[in-house]
């Protein structure tokens, strides 16, 4: 009885809302319908539901990959309470972040072609039919803006060109990713029937029209977009796939170029640590439940050393293998009674900066591959690589591989 009544009321409510958002809005006078707003203003016979759906499918996959890998990278750097990032496999972050940047760059021609294919819709007449249409157009505008924002800011960040970016990149890129993925899901929900029609082979342009224009066919354009994405990838991916470095004249980094044959993201001068890092009175301060010890470079040299190969993996998409020699972090923490299952804090000699400190979670603290490295490629660390000692741990973003380490502290759980 009650249930039937609720149902009736709900139905009435839905009808009422539907009536409001579907109520036709007045059509602007037709003399305003000029330029691109005219019927037939766009003449390419190449545009079709099928082309748009296929480009959209590829683009959707690319955005999905970028969203998941980007979310991972953000969560590793700002872990929510439910999130834990393992220390193994060693190269997992290298893979996810390499894929993130490579996919983002390959998205450039995809997004361009997709937006071209739907450009006439921007000049639909009447501009808004009803409230529902207005909402849909607004959500598409959000999607287009967010997608362009992500690709443009990503390209600028890879080129380290921060001046045109009127925002803090990592925060804005992260929140815009949520905006883009949300608007994308909404867009798919709205367009699902059209997408199904397009992907099933219906909704193709008339082949005769396209042939009459003698330009690229739909398949030809898809192939050109694929070649463009492939060319961009090949020209840049050598920054992380070393065997391809010679084929990548546009790689923002070369894995073997830099002091001690390894690239640097922040120099000692840039970090303002030259004096502190070269001070003969330098001591590494280690604090734990059993107290504090201060180790000079000679003390550190007397501890057991290990040599191992670990990559530096930058959030900007480059990575490079290197051979490090140093003391295990878990051995250092054992000197001060650090618990076997707790996290630790690593602090740089830098006076400030966003990445002055980093927290090692228990999985990394106790991994035998986690070192405070004193040597790189069998030479003392270059000042720009973090002399006198730096953190190097498996499966960890470069910005968290703290350089110029001054303090190591066992953090109570």
């Amino acid at each position, binding site marked *: 009885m009650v249930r039937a009544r609720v149902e009736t009321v709900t139905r009435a409510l839905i009808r009422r809302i539907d009536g409001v958002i579907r109520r036709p809005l007045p059509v602007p006078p037709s003399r305003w319908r000029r330029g691109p707003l005219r019927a037939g203003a766009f003449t390419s016979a190449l545009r079709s539901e099928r082309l748009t759906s296929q480009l959209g499918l590829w683009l959707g996959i690319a955005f999905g990959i970028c969203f998941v890998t980007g979310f991972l990278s953000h969560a590793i750097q700002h872990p929510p309470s439910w999130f834990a990032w393992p220390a193994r496999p060693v190269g997992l972050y290298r893979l996810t972040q390499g894929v993130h940047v490579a996919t983002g760059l390959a998205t450039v021609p995809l997004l*361009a072609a997709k937006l071209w294919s739907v450009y006439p819709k921007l000049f639909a007449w009447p501009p808004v039919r009803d409230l529902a249409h207005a909402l849909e157009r607004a959500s598409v505008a959000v999607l287009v803006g967010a997608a362009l924002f992500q690709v443009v800011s990503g390209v600028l960040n*890879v080129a380290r060109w921060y001046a045109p970016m009127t925002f803090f990149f990592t*925060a804005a890129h992260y929140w815009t990713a949520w905006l883009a993925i949300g608007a994308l899901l909404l867009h798919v929900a709205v367009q*699902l029937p059209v997408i199904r029609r397009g992907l099933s082979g219906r909704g193709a342009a008339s082949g005769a029209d396209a042939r009459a224009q003698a330009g690229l066919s739909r398949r030809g354009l898809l192939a*050109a977009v694929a070649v*463009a994405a492939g060319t961009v990838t090949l020209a840049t991916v050598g920054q992380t796939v070393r065997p391809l470095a010679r084929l990548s004249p*546009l790689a923002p980094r070369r894995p073997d170029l830099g002091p001690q044959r390894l690239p640097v993201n922040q*120099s000692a001068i840039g970090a303002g640590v030259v004096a502190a890092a070269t001070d003969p009175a330098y001591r590494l301060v280690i604090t734990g439940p059993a107290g504090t010890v201060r180790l000079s470079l000679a003390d550190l040299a007397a501890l057991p050393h290990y040599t191992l190969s670990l990559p530096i993996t930058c959030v900007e998409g480059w990575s490079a293998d290197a051979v490090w020699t140093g003391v295990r972090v878990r051995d250092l923490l054992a000197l001060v009674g650090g618990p076997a299952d707790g996290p630790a804090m690593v602090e740089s000699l830098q006076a400030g900066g966003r990445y002055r400190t980093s927290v090692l979670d228990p999985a990394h603290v106790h991994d035998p591959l986690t070192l405070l490295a004193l040597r790189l490629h069998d030479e003392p660390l270059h000042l720009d690589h973090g002399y006198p000692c730096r953190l190097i741990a498996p499966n960890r973003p470069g910005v968290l591989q703290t350089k110029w380490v001054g303090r190591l502290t066992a953090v109570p759980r």
Partner: protein
Amino acid sequence: MKAVRICLAMLGTLAMGYAVLGAVTDPDDRLAGHLSFLLAVQAAHDAVVLPVAIGVGLLLRRYVPAPARRVVQAALVVSVAVAVVAVPLALGYGRPADHPSALPLNYLRGLLTVLASVWLVAGVMLIGTRLRARRPG
């Protein structure tokens, strides 16, 4: 399908809401700059980039003979995509003075190398098209 669409729409709206809430409450997110850049890239794309691209397409249709048109169009698609990625590198504003291992290459030369390769392939394809057109039968 209706249930799928409703679920997608709700998830999408939630994610967008989360994005707005996150951006507004994140002290690191400089909201005015964030929003103005978002509008600026969209305006630049819709009002400048695409009209120019479509104008170039119309010029191709008028001035490039039919058999060659497809090849030229495809080569332009590849060239523009490469240029979007390469030009910010080639301009070199991001090159730090204090450590040359960031952006260590000559990116103008890199861009020209890639473009030359693309147009070399396009040239070979054009010659192939021409030969095929001449062959009788």
